[in-house]
């Protein structure tokens, strides 16, 4: 088990394995997006209360979910880098940060564009929206810290501590709709196995969630590989690879 983890954490092994995973993962992502978008825009019915504006939720809900799970993934990998000093973990945390930030921005903007016709306002300072905005600032802080500190080791260490402290915000976002009486409605897919939405709306939503997740994995791997070969530029395997490629 431990041997396996160490093997996977070796930069060269990670580079080779991720190179094999990337092409099929990319095609799966594209297929899921096409099916999901057709389902969301054409096949799913308009909502009896929200009308056609319900179609915004097919791109809003996955982004909001990913904004939180990206943060957890970023904090975990940053913590692994902090505790066990695995360079690859630092790189993955670095790669995830802008992805999570983009997901947060998408969730905030699509949410407020949906809120205008449905709630009558683009923005309210309710618990869900405010804590999601704080999440955006946490991502910004993480990225700013990494770019501000020249030395990659101490940059990773400082930003890992920030990511771990900011982890408190995640349960606040998740349970804000239950803890406080907010304008934001509770979870769309609340009960596992018995969701509160109709099957004709559920399947496009689930496919869009899967598409966002695959896209997240795909971009994370691509970005990690890119940063990895740059940081390993003095190692013999990268030099050999560059020589063979040119």
């Amino acid at each position, binding site marked *: 088990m431990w041997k396996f983890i160490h093997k996977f954490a070796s930069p060269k092994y990670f580079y080779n394995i991720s190179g094999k995973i990337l092409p099929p993962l990319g095609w799966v992502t594209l297929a899921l997006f096409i099916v999901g978008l057709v389902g969301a825009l054409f096949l799913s019915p*308009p909502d009896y209360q929200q*009308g056609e504006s319900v*179609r*915004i939720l097919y791109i*809003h809900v996955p982004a909001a979910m990913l904004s939180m799970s990206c943060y957890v993934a970023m904090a975990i990998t940053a913590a692994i880098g902090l505790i066990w000093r695995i360079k690859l973990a630092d790189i993955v945390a670095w790669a995830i940060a802008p992805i999570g930030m983009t997901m947060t921005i998408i969730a905030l903007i699509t949410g407020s564009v949906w809120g*205008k016709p449905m709630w009558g306002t683009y923005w309210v300072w309710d618990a869900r929206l405010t804590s999601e905005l704080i999440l955006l600032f946490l991502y910004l802080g993480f990225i700013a810290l990494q770019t501000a500190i020249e030395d990659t080791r101490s940059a990773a260490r400082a930003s890992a501590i920030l990511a771990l402290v900011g982890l408190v915000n995640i349960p606040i976002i998740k349970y804000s709709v239950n803890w406080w009486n907010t304008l934001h409605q509770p979870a769309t897919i609340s009960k596992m196995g018995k969701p509160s939405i109709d099957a004709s709306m559920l399947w496009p939503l689930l496919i869009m969630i899967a598409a966002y997740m695959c896209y997240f994995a795909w971009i994370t791997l691509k*970005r990690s590989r890119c940063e990895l070969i740059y940081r390993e530029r003095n190692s013999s395997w990268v030099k050999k690879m560059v020589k063979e490629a040119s």
Partner: protein
Amino acid sequence: MKEFFAMGGYGFYVWLSYAVALGGLLALYLMTRGCESRVKRQLEKRLRLEQRRKSRDTTS
């Protein structure tokens, strides 16, 4: 067709959010491509410099 784009009067909101979401995802992809080509350029430049230095050392 026109009816589809109108989205029951919510056209502006629906298409604006789809544009924002897909634009955001596309921006991530372009950023990654930018990183890849930048690193590739830098590594090739380092290789060229190294080879030039090596050939100079052997000739002099």
